[in-house]
């Protein structure tokens, strides 16, 4: 979609400034080396942060430049044009945004700059074996002790836990109020004896996630985000944030490459498989590509409308749309391959892709809230339909029957 932002003298000067800065400082991507959770580009990201390009929408006090959206997009485009990472974190950095909005001043002074430079590894400690869709049913407890809290419980579906410095944790701090009102939100230090991380093997035979067993782990006072027992509200902003980027994160092939082939990948597979002249195949391929393109158009329109200041309902639909795309693409890819799809392994990359996609589609349709939960959210928050009655919403959590 064409960019409708008009160049003004201000944005032209800004563009010149950021381009000059990049010309002087950016010398191509640093060599990627194994680093424990910290971003290998940390030195570069720190430079970007200190120059004010990481979060230009934020105030100067917080490494920003107080730019409006149009100005910030000038910065992001200049970085993208140079192939330089690190800009636009005021839109994309879940951890830094959450910390800035909700952390105590003492803690965010320390953590926000580290997060912007990728100097600390992070993970999410939300779901539990007994609290998936019903996240407010968590039973991990944080008990008040001298100087902070002691935490005990079990978390699941945590990616990067083994290399993380902090986990964004929700834990129950009051058992005598209804479930949503007794939860607090913390930054849990992960590198301590009471935190035990074990890998979880997925249906794709990969291990991107962990289970985290927490036994009497300590959280310092300053690491509470938002009010005590006000963690549910903090979580909502963090979750909305996560979902809005999830539609774009979805992987197609096992390699994760969407690459330049982009929308044409399925068309190319049909051609390679010698089936592109089959009218049924042509209809299926056209429909899947159409859904992908429609999802992109929806996202573009949502962003454009947000910039115009009108509220948009489209962002919440992206993840739901992507679920349908991935499951259907898995089906079409599999049918294109026929018996070849019975195989796996490096000698059968097309089968590997089709089979992986067919399984990994659930990453999108279950992860981050199932499609069914997304439909509830869309129905209730976007379309204004009434909530399903919840029998445990007003009951003290201590008295809620657990499954």
């Amino acid at each position, binding site marked *: 979609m064409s960019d409708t932002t008009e160049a003004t003298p201000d944005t032209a000067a800004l563009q010149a400034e950021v381009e000059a800065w990049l010309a002087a400082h950016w010398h191509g991507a640093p060599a990627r080396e194994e680093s424990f959770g910290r971003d290998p580009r940390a030195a570069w990201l720190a430079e970007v942060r200190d120059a004010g390009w990481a979060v230009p929408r934020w105030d100067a006090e917080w490494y920003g430049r107080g730019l409006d959206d149009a100005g910030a997009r000038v910065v992001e485009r200049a970085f993208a044009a140079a192939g330089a990472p690190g800009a636009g974190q005021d839109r994309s950095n879940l951890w830094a945004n959450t910390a800035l909005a909700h952390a105590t001043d003492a803690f965010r002074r320390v953590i926000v700059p580290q997060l912007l430079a990728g100097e600390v590894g992070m993970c999410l400690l939300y779901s539990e074996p007994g609290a998936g869709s019903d996240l407010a049913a968590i039973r991990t407890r944080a008990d008040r002790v001298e100087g902070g809290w002691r935490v005990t419980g079990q978390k699941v579906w945590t990616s990067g836990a083994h290399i993380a410095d902090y986990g964004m944790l929700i834990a129950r701090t009051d058992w005598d109020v209804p479930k949503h009102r007794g939860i607090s939100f913390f930054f849990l230090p992960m590198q301590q004896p009471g935190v035990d991380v074990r890998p979880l093997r997925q249906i794709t035979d990969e291990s991107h996630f962990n289970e985290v067993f927490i036994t009497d782990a300590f959280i310092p006072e300053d690491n509470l985000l938002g009010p005590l027992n006000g963690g549910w509200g903090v979580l909502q902003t963090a979750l909305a944030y996560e979902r809005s980027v999830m539609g774009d994160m979805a992987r197609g092939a096992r390699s994760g490459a969407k690459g330049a082939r982009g929308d044409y990948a399925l068309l190319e597979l049909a051609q390679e498989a010698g089936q592109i002249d089959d*009218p049924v195949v042509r209809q299926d391929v056209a429909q899947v590509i159409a859904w992908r393109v429609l999802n992109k*158009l*929806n996202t573009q329109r949502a962003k454009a409308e947000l910039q115009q200041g009108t509220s948009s309902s489209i962002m919440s639909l992206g993840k739901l749309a992507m679920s349908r795309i991935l499951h259907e693409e898995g089906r079409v890819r599999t049918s294109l391959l026929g018996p070849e799809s019975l195989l796996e392994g490096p000698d059968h990359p097309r089968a590997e892709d089709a089979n992986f996609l067919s399984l990994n589609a659930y990453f999108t349709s279950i992860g981050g809230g199932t499609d069914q939960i997304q439909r509830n959210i869309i129905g209730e928050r976007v379309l204004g339909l009434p909530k399903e009655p919840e029998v445990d919403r007003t009951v003290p959590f201590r008295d809620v029957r657990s499954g």
Partner: protein
Amino acid sequence: MSDVAELPMAAERVTLSREERDALCDTVRRVFADHATEGDVRRVMDSDTGHDAVLWRALADVGVTGLLVDPAHGGSGLGPIELELVMEEAGAVIAPVPLISSAMAAVLLDGAYAERLAAGDLIAAVIFLDDYDWTGRGSARVVDDMASGVARFVPDAVVADVFVLTGSNGVWVVPRDAVTVTPLPTFDRTRRMGDVTLAGAATRIGTGAETQHAFDIGIVALAGEQAGGARRMLNMSTDYARERHQFGRAIGSFQAVKHMAADLLLEAESATSAARDAARQLAEDSVGKGGAGKDAALALAAFACADANLRCAKDGIQMHGGIAFTWDHPAHLYLRRARSGVQLLGDSSHWRERYIQALEAAQREAAV
């Protein structure tokens, strides 16, 4: 692709700001609120012609009939983007007036015809010839400026003052009294059609280079109508799901109903995106900035909007339950309109095939 530089509208394109577009939509919405109530639509639906002359005059008075007509001929000189927005409003109320035919005719007609069209004094029906005959059933042709054969399923044929025949090799005008119109018993009574038997002289007014653009204009107009219809059925159905109570609670609180609504929102949003993108691509194409993307965008809008509108109408009725199975409830009017829209200018399978052809063409372009 047509040589769009020849089009009369390309020279005098007027562009509107977002605020001006909003104002245009407000104006049109007001006209529809006054003259296209459900009662109006039902009255017109049961009339002989199925045409709302009062609404048509009101639309002419605010400039809608001349939307695409060159300012030199009394029109507004606007383009596909504004047309699409107006059609969203029209689709929301099932306006029984020849908006799509007129939009297509506006880019084909010139001179006095264009002036009368803009003024709302002329209704023009469009007959597509040769490869452009989307019905695949017609035999209309023009040889040495003599028209013959039968054009099938011509929208607005019954009320047309003039017929515009357009194909690969020319554009011709034939007056109403030179043809025989056989009205068809259309399932969608708000979009009447007729078979047109041709036998006589036709006045040549163009080379045929305009035909593709006229067809594209029709696609954009129809897509806008379908996006508007999809949105209206979604809203009607969610409103009802909030109000209707069973088992002591609003039916919209049941996940079985709520999840249907969420899925329809995705359909309605996708239709809006597709229709607006097609309009934008066509607008850029008209000023020579478009390219390969235009064909894909139009094909996408043609089936995505048709399918979305049909799904919203169908599932919307299901969400309502028994009340929407009655004739007196408006939902079936939207389903009828959605079903006629799926056929008009080619069905969804046809357009999915055209879409993949456009993707293949873009793929070849990228390869060289």
